[in-house]
């Protein structure tokens, strides 16, 4: 039954594409964990916040309009202008950098040297906070993300594959775009970390906090830097996922999809995030395709975790994590 095989292949390819989307989210986690040892649960909410901000700016929404109206009895909603997508993206990046600075100033500075779980909890607090602020700022209705990304089936691939195999493959153009953007993003990160002073500092800190501090790298600067980058990555993820489902609260839940990716890839490895994302994406789609119908489907939520769990049992440090050598 070649059709079945082709279909399986198609599922796989689509899984890989989704995996890229997962990896995009996971990347934000990895960056922050690598540089500061913080497991940033707020990454998902940051993606939501970035996407909300982008759309809000694009549509010329007045921030905190609801609050202002409630307090002053005014009735304002929009400035009445539309901001071009590119400019809006730049502005959003600036907002995310500002957010990074604030997070460092208000939260992280006071929690230096705390146990990881405390920092983790702080990021959950941050997630609540940002969610509330995002709602207050831009409202909690669903917004349409439109930055000109293509969407829908790629006809050329459909046609080409049909010509070759007699089976038209479905690939979403958004997924293709996401893959390209993800590749560009990773390339940019590599260039940044290899060829810029800040990037090298970042790597130094990731390798060894103490050593980095002793050669005069400001940890606080690094933190702002890495949170800014994570904010940028969150924006990219927010755009991609927002284009799929509209910008709304549920966007923040994509963080949950990134966690098994992290387990699999290792918390500190960028290639791990990518490869982990691909494996998880492909794995869960294939599982849903092959086993799903037997057990009633909707397996994707847990399968990724169970896959990662089984994997970890055999390799506790993840795919690309450093081997744990126990010493006394």
């Amino acid at each position, binding site marked *: 039954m070649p059709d079945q095989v082709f279909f399986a292949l198609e599922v796989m390819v689509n899984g890989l594409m989704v995996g890229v989307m997962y990896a995009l989210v996971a990347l934000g986690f990895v960056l922050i964990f690598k540089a500061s040892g913080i497991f940033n649960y707020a990454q998902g909410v940051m993606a939501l916040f970035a996407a909300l901000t982008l759309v809000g700016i694009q549509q010329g929404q007045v921030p905190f309009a609801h609050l202002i109206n409630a307090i002053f009895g005014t009735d304002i909603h929009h400035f009445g202008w539309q901001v071009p997508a590119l400019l809006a993206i730049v502005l959003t990046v600036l907002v995310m950098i500002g957010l990074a600075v604030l997070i460092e100033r208000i939260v992280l500075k006071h929690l230096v040297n705390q146990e990881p779980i405390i920092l983790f909890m702080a990021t959950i607090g941050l997630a609540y906070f940002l969610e509330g602020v995002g709602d207050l700022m831009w409202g*909690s209705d669903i917004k349409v*993300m439109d930055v000109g990304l293509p969407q829908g089936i790629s006809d050329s691939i459909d046609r080409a594959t049909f010509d070759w195999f007699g089976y038209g493959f*479905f690939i979403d153009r958004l997924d293709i775009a996401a893959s390209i953007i993800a590749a560009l993003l990773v390339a940019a990160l590599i260039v940044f970390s290899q060829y810029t002073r800040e990037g090298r500092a970042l790597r130094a800190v990731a390798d060894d906090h103490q050593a980095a501090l002793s050669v005069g790298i400001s940890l606080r600067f690094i933190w702002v830097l890495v949170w800014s980058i994570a904010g940028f990555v969150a924006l990219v993820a927010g755009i991609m996922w927002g284009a799929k*489902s*509209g910008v709304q609260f549920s966007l923040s839940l994509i963080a949950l999809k990134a966690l098994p990716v992290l387990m699999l890839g290792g918390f500190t490895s960028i290639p791990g995030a990518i490869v982990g994302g691909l494996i998880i994406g492909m794995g869960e*789609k294939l599982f849903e395709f092959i086993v799903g119908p037997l057990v009633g489907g909707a397996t994707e939520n847990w399968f990724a975790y169970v896959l990662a769990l089984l994997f970890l049992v055999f390799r506790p440090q993840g795919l690309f994590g450093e081997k744990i050598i126990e010493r006394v």
Partner: protein
Amino acid sequence: MTRLTTLALGAALAAGPALADLVFPDLSYRTGPYAAGGIPFSDGYQDYFALVNARDGGIGGVPARVVECETAYNTEKGVECYEATKGEGALVYQPLSTGITYQLIPKVQADGIPLHTMGYGRTSAANGEVFSHVFNYPANYWDAASVAISYLSGENGGDLTGKKITLLYHNSAYGKEPIRTLEELAAKHGYELTTIAVDHPGQEQGSQWLRIRRERPDYVIMWGWGVMNQVAIQEAANIRFPMENFIGNWWAGAEHDVTPAGAAANGYKSLNMNRVVDYPVFDDIRTYVVEAGNAAGDGSNVGSVLYTRGMYAAMLAVEAAKTAQEIHGVADIDAGMMRDGMEALEMTAAKMEALGMPGIGPEFSVTCQNHGGSGLGLVQQWDAAAGTWTPLTDFIAPDDAVIDPLIAADSEAFAAENGITPGCAES
């Protein structure tokens, strides 16, 4: 400071009922994953009461008071809201959440406060002999499934034999509701049913839609809520599934469900329990409520699908209250009287016309045996260019022959489990 704490405490202690008005709690959700659906419904619900107060001077001369309580679609918060508001003399609850409904069913039966779950909640509550205080008129999920099949049957000249129909459902109690009905109907109509579950929240439906693309069903019926709807419609567009063959239930057919997909969503259909057109009553609302600054929201939702439904729900509540006032001959009714009013509610075309919303819903009358109304529903279609939903059909009747036994079986099971003797109490 003193004021704040006393007030906070006062609220916490649920101050004694203020008898001078009719209290309609609104368990709304303006935050959380389903806020997009919760906001317009709540706006419509509240605005109608505001209209009644402003325009008619209340219900039978008694002003209505809406007590809003945020649940965030969360059952525990729903319970908290219920407990916090019931002491204020609440007449009827409209929780807009199947989960909360299930919590409240035993509680309202015990407290004697009616619960109106309009087109959601526990379907078998239509059996008023078992569920004395729960009403789910004008229609329920099983009605909806049946209406959808009836509609498709009508499209196909009355014959669905050999057709492939796929149910894409939210993997929750709500999503699973229509499965039994559709299965029964499949046996009756001879179509082939496949069900595909989407887990909460439903952001990622790639594999489900690949499957749909491969299996090429003739129709896809969707039982979704929240982000699942938007993603499904987008994915349907992505695989170029013909939108006119894609029918959502009435909780998957609002503006915000289709707008993220843009033009690609054009032609998507959904069920509705109420007709959405520009009713005269909207002008009244704009005049008496929005412009007076008393709107629950910013007024931009007026006329949208869920706003209209919220308003419809409020209208049914007001009419039931009026009925209660007539039955008991007092203006200041209590929850028990409200229940009687709901059980004696009759919606006629003339009544709706008079209220400025002609044909907004089907005609129906509630009885002790039937708390579920007529079960009629219509099909509407999204016009992406105009940005409006257009009613395609008139109200379609469900297949009661299939549904009634299901309701009887389920409600009897509940009665047995909870030691309820079915019957109509003398009220």
